[in-house]
């Protein structure tokens, strides 16, 4: 039975491809109101039709079948593109649903009964849902990318001196943000050839175990790479957390503030800072 349904559907898809494509394009264009060029739509739909025919002939009506791999890939490409360009989910899914009218027409003309129409309808519905899903996924990816970019922007790694870089952290640290910042810090060590890094957490009100662990791991990783990492500006509350959690800060250099940390790093690289005895006006 299901095999039969697939055969009917395949028949419809292959019967008059050009007519099907034209009708589909016309219906879809109504909903898009010129937001996608017709050449672009035509290319996308033509590819989809070819892939759909392949899917139906290999996998029948089962969209999860491997024969539908290309269809899924094309739909997620379409969705990603639409999500980036700011199309709504319904504007995206309607392009697929528009295939229904064209298929019904063909079915009616070919003298197929309500059964065939129902099958086609259910099949297009499933395709539409698939599009919806991949749109949502694409949309989430876009948002995740944007928030990652934002995170990068909000935590600059700055060069304080030749061979000394610092990252001043401000605000609440969650595990994800800490990880991104730490990776960036380590990469900066490589890019600038700096042997000293300072993580300044003066602007961080509190840390949880996980974040404290990430900080620690970063210090150890920096050491493995051949650089030294100092943590400065640990607030009393954070110090208490660290002690209460029993986290070993061991031999990791900590300094009260960024200035002391810089001084420590400079000494480490052989630079001595002294106050001038005379002159200088003060």
């Amino acid at each position, binding site marked *: 039975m299901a095999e039969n349904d697939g055969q009917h559907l395949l028949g419809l898809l292959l019967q008059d491809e050009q007519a099907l494509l034209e009708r589909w394009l016309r219906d879809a264009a109504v909903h898009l109101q010129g937001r996608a060029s017709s050449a672009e739509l035509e290319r996308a739909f033509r590819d989809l039709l070819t892939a759909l025919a392949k899917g139906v002939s290999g996998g029948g009506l089962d969209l999860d079948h491997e024969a539908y791999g290309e269809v899924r890939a094309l739909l997620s490409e379409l969705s990603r593109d639409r999500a980036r360009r700011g199309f709504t989910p319904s504007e995206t899914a309607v392009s697929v649903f528009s295939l229904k009218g064209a298929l019904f027409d063909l079915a009616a003309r070919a003298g197929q009964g309500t059964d065939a129409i129902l099958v086609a309808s259910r099949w297009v519905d499933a395709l539409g849902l698939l599009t919806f899903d991949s749109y949502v996924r694409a949309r989430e990816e876009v948002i995740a990318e944007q928030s990652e970019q934002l995170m990068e922007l909000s935590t600059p790694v700055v060069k304080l001196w030749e061979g000394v870089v610092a990252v001043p952290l401000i605000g609440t640290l969650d595990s994800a943000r800490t990880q991104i910042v730490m*990776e960036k810090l*380590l990469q900066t060590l*490589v890019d600038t*050839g700096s*042997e000293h890094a300072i993580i300044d957490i003066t602007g961080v009100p509190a840390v949880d175990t996980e974040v404290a662990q990430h900080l620690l*791991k*970063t210090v150890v*990783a920096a050491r*493995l*790479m051949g650089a030294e990492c100092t943590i400065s500006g640990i607030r009393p509350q954070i110090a208490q957390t660290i002690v209460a959690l029993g986290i070993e800060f061991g031999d990791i250099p900590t300094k009260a503030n960024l200035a002391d940390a810089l001084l420590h790093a400079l000494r480490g690289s052989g630079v001595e800072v002294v106050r001038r005895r005379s002159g200088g006006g003060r």
Partner: protein
Amino acid sequence: MSQQVPVLRLGNALLVSIQVDLQDDDVLALQEELAERIVATGARGVIIDISAVDIVDSFIGRMFSSIAALSRVLDAETVVVGMRPAVAITLVELGLSLDGVRTALDLEKGRAILDRLIADRRTVRDIAQDDDEFVPIDDPAGERHQPDPSRR
């Protein structure tokens, strides 16, 4: 024998630059070859450049520690240079601490570390090469007045 990894001479040190994904036997072969070359050349240091290496697992990590220990026995020093951040982060998670291995960000800094270490452990052979100065071998005060060899 390890044809996979060339061992080059760099002044009084050996330079090993790992460029390909090594299988365990190659790693062991390299370790053996290095021991032989240290003795044969009288090298005072080994620099292992891993800037092209995209993963270090416990096996390669152990090789670094072994080479470091082994070269120390042969009176040489080992520095691993160029570890990538992703590799370092992974090693920390894996729990491998590379005990006894010195590291540096790049080849140049590794060379500088080696020079400093070698200067601290000068041998009669090194001193014989300095024709114009006398340096006491026995120096209980630990106060040596020698030029920094890296500046020569």
